[in-house]
């Protein structure tokens, strides 16, 4: 009789090209049976050298280049860059432009969150709900196209203000779109809260405890689902957020479901913020030509991107090109927390857990 030796654990590669992953991530997962023992994260598959490129472009060009680092939080990147440059140049942004910046940011947030929860339904295998969530998101996409002229890269910001003004027609279009999307988002929130298929696959999955969340320094919906009340919009209000009804939903479930619920509640809140902005939009200029003088200096700016806190560091000198431009994207700390979330998880849940941090690999690896 021949003896068969069975290894106690196996290593399986997930990625860099994998049917369940939206972007090229690479995990080397050690499994024992169906349970994950250890995860190694490998980065660098979509490194494009954008940081270096940014130092070869003028600030005006970088307003567009940074927008193309990431598609889903494309609005937050030039927003943070503009804020950093405006800090250095002591440029004052007109009030109307500040409201318009909030509007652009919140529209992007609604679309981004709906996309993530839609993909969650897809990974759960609930295709009808996935299609419906994407259909609801389509309203936000059409809204962006009608107001800003593009479905993803809004080009809303310029140095010292915004590029795109909203006339009565655009405001009316936005009001109609919000009227249409608001009940649908509330309905989606209810579905994700009560639907058995969603609950069975997401509750108690991908646990990131409050202590681990603090240790990893996670931000955004991932942090708020682990009972950390932190949102840049309230912690360090920028633009006119101190005058707006920003709610920071917090849950202590620490699981995939809590993260999805936070996103849906935030989407509802973003729509409320949009209503207030449209009602209180002041008149006045929206920019001062978009080409202010930026003296040599350095500054840091923070914004709340859909995925969490986005930090920009800008150092300028006498040249029109910045000496250094660096950004810390929310997916960077959140990604590290995956090692905690994936521990003791089942192989079948990997895709759901990875999706729950809403990873943006293209901006993490820039």
């Amino acid at each position, binding site marked *: 009789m021949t003896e068969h030796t069975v290894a106690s654990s196996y290593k399986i590669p997930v990625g860099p090209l994998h049917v369940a992953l939206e972007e090229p991530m690479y995990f080397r997962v050690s499994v024992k049976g169906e349970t994950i023992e250890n995860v190694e994260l490998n980065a660098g598959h979509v490194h494009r050298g954008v940081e270096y490129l940014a130092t070869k472009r003028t600030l005006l*060009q970088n307003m567009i280049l940074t927008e193309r680092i990431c598609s889903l939080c494309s609005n937050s990147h030039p927003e943070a860059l503009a804020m950093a440059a405006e800090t250095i140049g002591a440029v004052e942004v007109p009030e109307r432009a500040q409201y318009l910046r909030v509007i652009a940011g919140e529209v992007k947030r609604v679309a981004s969150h709906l996309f993530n929860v839609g993909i969650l339904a897809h990974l759960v295998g609930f295709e009808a709900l996935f299609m419906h969530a994407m259909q609801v998101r389509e309203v936000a996409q059409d809204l962006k196209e009608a107001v*800003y002229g593009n479905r993803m890269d809004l080009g809303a910001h310029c140095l010292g203000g915004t590029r795109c003004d909203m006339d009565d027609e655009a405001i009316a279009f936005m009001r109609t779109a919000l009227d249409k999307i608001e009940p649908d988002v509330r309905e989606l929130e209810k579905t994700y809260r009560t639907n058995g298929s969603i609950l069975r696959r997401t509750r108690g999955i991908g646990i990131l405890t409050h202590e681990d969340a603090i240790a990893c320094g996670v931000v955004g919906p991932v942090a708020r689902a682990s009972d950390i009340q932190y949102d840049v919009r309230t912690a360090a209000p920028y633009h006119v957020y101190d005058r707006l009804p920003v709610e920071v939903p917090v849950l202590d479930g620490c699981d995939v479901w809590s993260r999805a619920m936070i996103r849906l509640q935030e989407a509802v809140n973003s729509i409320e913020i949009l209503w207030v902005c449209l009602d209180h939009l002041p008149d006045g200029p929206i920019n001062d030509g978009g080409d202010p003088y930026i003296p040599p200096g350095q500054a840091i700016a923070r914004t709340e991107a859909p995925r969490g806190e986005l930090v920009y560091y800008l150092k300028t000198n006498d040249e029109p090109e910045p000496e250094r431009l660096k950004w810390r994207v929310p997916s960077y700390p959140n990604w590290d927390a995956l090692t905690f979330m994936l521990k003791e998880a089942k192989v079948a849940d990997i895709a759901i857990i990875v999706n729950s941090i809403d990873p943006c690999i293209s901006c993490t690896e820039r």
Partner: protein
Amino acid sequence: MNFLQLFAHNLTKGPFTDPFPFEPAPTAKRFRGKIEFDPETCEGCRKCEKVCPAGAIRFTKTANGLEFDCWHDSCVFCGNCEFHCPTNAIHQTQDWHLAHVQQDKFSMVEHGVIPSHECPSCGKPALYTAAPANKIKGFSEAEVAEFRSLCPKCRGKYLRERKSRS
């Protein structure tokens, strides 16, 4: 969410996709599509070339004058050129039909020439560029036409003389 209701809704209100290419797809009025250049209103400041992040816009000086080229295969349709243009000589159209065969890839270009001519005052070659809006405030139509035909040096002279006259 009642999926039966949703099903009935989608069956009666749908489909939600556009039947393109069998019917024209609806395009937003503010859609940022192909670039259109108007050499008549261009003042030749070349700001669009400087702010273009993709390097799609090039100005070249030739015997004909100042030639403008925007390569649509490099363009990212950000609209920076339109935003920074002081005279609205460049703008984006609603046209997004950019599909083309491989051999046409070098002809997806928006081209325009700012013609070169002789300055009627000094006889030197000059570009027939539009006059900067801030310089011609209060000018009559005939004055604008005359000012426009001059070379940069003679334009300066013209401005000084006009100022001393008034």
